[in-house]
Structure formats: C-alpha cells, structure tokens
C-alpha cells in the first residue's frame, strides 16, 4: 500500500463516518461540527490531488464560510437542551432502503464501466494558470461564468439582506 493509498483510505473513512454522524446525530450543533470535519477531510482530498487552490477555497468558503453561517443560525434558533426529534421507524427504514438501493445501483454501474486509463502527467496547476484561465475569453477561458457568478453572489447578498431584515409592520 502506498502512502497515497493510505491517505485516501484515512480521508475517506473520516468522510464516510462523519457524514453518517452528521445525518444521524440528534444534537444539531454536533451535526454542524461533524459536517465541518467532512468538509475539512474533503479539502485534504483536494490537497492530495494537488488542487491546492481548490482546497484553500474549500476551506475558506465551505468550512470557514458556510459552516460558520450554519453554526450562527443554530445559535440564533435553538437552545442547548433541545434535541431533534427522531423520525418514525417506518420513515427511517424507507429512507434507508431508498438510499442503499440508489447507492448499490450507482456502484454497480461504476464498477461495470470501463474508464479510459490515462497516464496523468499533470502540468502543475499553479495559481498563474488558474488566474489566466478564469479571466480569459478563449476556448478554455471562464470569463463569462466568472461574471455570472459575481452577479449571482451580489443578488444573493441583496436578497438575503432584504429577507432577513426586520420589517416595520
């Protein structure tokens, strides 16, 4: 087993265990903490694949942004003594059957598919390449989605301020 395989197994064990805990724990802030661990382990996976920039984005936006936002809303809307009520057994069984059936179907399909084997001699994804591609209008440039995303973020910001604002009525 190579070091990379060991790291992959470690990270995927963390991801799977804490994902399950996220959806099954009955304390809401613990769920948010476990979600944080899942996201940090995913960032580790990106670091392993040498997408450093993406991993840093994952840490900043997902772990440092969205999880903090979720924790803040938990702090505002619930009390420490509250526990989430358990879903009924029939609901849990049905949901588990649906999830497991879907997972098995997908995994069978993945295993049956032949993927082309490429020898990856990846050019180092340094920050310059990313910056050039993000702002170029060539074939592999992402100028338009970049601008669209910025408008989307602005719209989301204004929208959430207006929704969450106290109305005088």
């Amino acid at each position: 087993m190579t070091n990379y395989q060991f790291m992959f197994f470690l990270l995927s064990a963390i991801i799977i265990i804490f994902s399950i805990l996220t959806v099954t724990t009955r304390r809401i802030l613990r769920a948010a903490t476990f979600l944080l661990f899942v996201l940090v382990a995913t960032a580790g996976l990106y670091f392993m694949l040498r997408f450093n920039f993406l991993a840093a984005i994952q840490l900043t936006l997902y772990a440092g942004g969205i999880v903090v936002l979720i924790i803040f809303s938990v702090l505002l809307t619930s009390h420490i003594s509250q526990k989430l009520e358990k879903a009924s057994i029939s609901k849990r069984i049905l949901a588990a059957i649906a999830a497991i059936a879907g997972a098995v179907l997908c995994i069978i399909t993945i295993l049956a598919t032949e993927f082309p084997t490429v020898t990856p001699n990846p050019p180092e994804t340094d920050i310059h390449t990313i910056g050039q591609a993000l702002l170029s209008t060539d074939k592999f440039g992402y100028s338009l989605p970049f601008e669209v995303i910025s408008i989307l973020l602005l719209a989301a910001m204004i929208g959430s301020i207006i929704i969450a604002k106290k109305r005088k009525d």
Partner: protein
Amino acid sequence: MGYSRYDFTPLLHSIDQWLYSVMSPAWALIVELTLIGLAFLIFYALVGLFLVYAERKVCGFIQNRVGPNRVGKYGIFQTIADFIKLLMKELIGTKDADKLLYNIAPYIVIICSFMAIGAIPFAQGLLAIDFDIGILYIISVSSLSVIGVLLAGWSSNSKYPLIGAMRSGAQIISYELSVGLSLLTIIVLAGTMQFSKIVMAQENGWFIFKGHIPAIIAFILYVIASTAETNRGPFDLAEAESELTAGYHTEYSGIKFAFFYLAEYMNMFIVASIAATVFLGGWMPLHIPAWNGFNVVMDYIPPVIWYFMKTAFVIYIIMLFKWTFPRLRIDHLLTLEWKYLLPINLVNILFMALIVLLGWHF
C-alpha cells in the same frame, strides 16, 4: 548574495537524504513528519511562554510598574510557574454542557493556529511547506478558528460565554475581510502568493517601501484588522471582563483554558509574522539599492534574527495598542470595519493596481 551563507536548504536536504538512505521510504516519511511536528510543538511552547511574559512586562512598563519580578531573575520563570499552576488545577465543567463539543473546542482553536504556522518562512529554506498559495492557505486556515470559539461559547451552557462567542464570531468574520483585502494589496504588487517568492522579491527593498503610499496604508489597515481578528485589545470586547467575566472561555479551567490562552498568543505571533513577512521583508536583511557596503554588513546578521526582530517589533506595536486605547463598543467596532476599513481597502487595491500597471513602484 551574502545572506545565502545562512541558507538552511543544504543542511535539511542532507538530513533528508540520510534518513532515506538509512530506512525505508515510508518510515523515513513518518520520522520526518514526527520530527517536524516535535520541532513546531517545542517552538510553540517556547514562543507562548515568552509572549505571555513579554505581555506582562510591556503592560507593566506602560502602567509605570515593574511587572513580574519574583520568580527567577526579572521574573523570567513567572510564566512557567503559572503554567504549572494551571496544569494542577481541577477541570470543572458546567451542568448539562455538551461534553463532546466542550472538549473539542479548544483543540479546534489550537489546531488551526498550528496549521497556519507550518507555512511561515523563518529563514531561507526553513519552512515546513512552501505552497504556491501560501497567503491564501494561511487566510483559509485561520478562518476556521472562529468555529472553535463559537462551539466553546455554545457548549458551555452558560449565558456569558454565549454572548461572548456571538460577539467574537461577528467580529472575527467581519475583520477577516479587511485582513484578506490588505494582504491582497501586496499580492497585487508581488504577483505571487508563495511565501518564499514574496520574501525573495523583497531583496532590493521591503514591500512597505516599494509600494509607496498604498503599501503603507495596507500595513496600517492590516495591523488594525488583525488586532481585531485575534480578539485583542482595544477590540477585546468578546472577553470584556467587566461585562462578560471572560467571554467564550469563562467556563473553562485548567489545561483547556491554557489551550485557549496559548492559542490567542500564538495567533498574535502568526499575525505578526505574516505582517513581518509580507510587508517588512520576512527574513530578508535590510537592503538599500546602491549602498553596497551597507548591504554587505547587513547580510552578516543571520536571517533568523532579522525575522524575529521584525516579528517582535510588530508584536510590540500590537501590545502597545492593547494597553493604550480604551475598549470599543460593539456597534462602533462593526461600524469601523464596514464603513471605514473595508471601503478604504477596496480603493487602496485599485490604487495599488494602478501603480503596478503604470510601473511606478521601485
């Protein structure tokens, strides 16, 4: 150049090759990781002890008193004595606290500062990992520590920690923006995020001199914003002792309290060393173009000493802040960030971009 006589790269490379020749690659990797971890752990403890002592001495100096002077000569063993006392204290928790999160929170805070310190260059070749996204990495890692603070405040099941955590969360998230933007100003000037390249680019003058007025503005903004981000005075209303007892770590005692305390000082050290590296040249000696004799003399001072001198200077400024200015009110604090620092920062970046485009920098 003269400073490369203190280059650590050959030494570390020979250690690396020796380890790989003695044992199998997997074991060599494990041994190397353990050694680096141990080195950082020891460094962490030493810097923490020193900073606590320095803070008390600086405070005493400003308030016109002696400061700790009983344990050892000039009281230098005072913090060690304090630490032993903290270790022997009983660990007290609150009733109905969320035990798991209560115990995890100090570790989240301390691991975040530990992760950040790995990317800081102490001297030529003396850094744990040289990312091409160095600055972004440090910003992203330090943005995680707020989660530890929020968890600590919530899981204590007590009202003062909760208020303190909410305040400090809002404060850290707001001031993160200014920290990131003021560093971005220098990234525009340097054209890279890699710490080793940033330091090398300051060979013929530090960025604070090279970047004219925008760099100086960015430095001032960075020092203000990072003081607020590390929850230090005059922005320490998260732990305003007169209204909130001690903020988010009120209910912690013993070694877990020591973790929060240590992480606070280490965050100050990290913030100061980023300021030293990005604005003041890091381990690079002071070079003035065309003053060759002066530059040669400066090169004889080892880079590690330059680095620690600059970091100590920034830390001293931050400590002076704490003991001179009165504490702000929470609405003033947020007004300062969103209405003054952020717009100034945005204009400053445009200004810097203009200077770089026109080639007005040195």
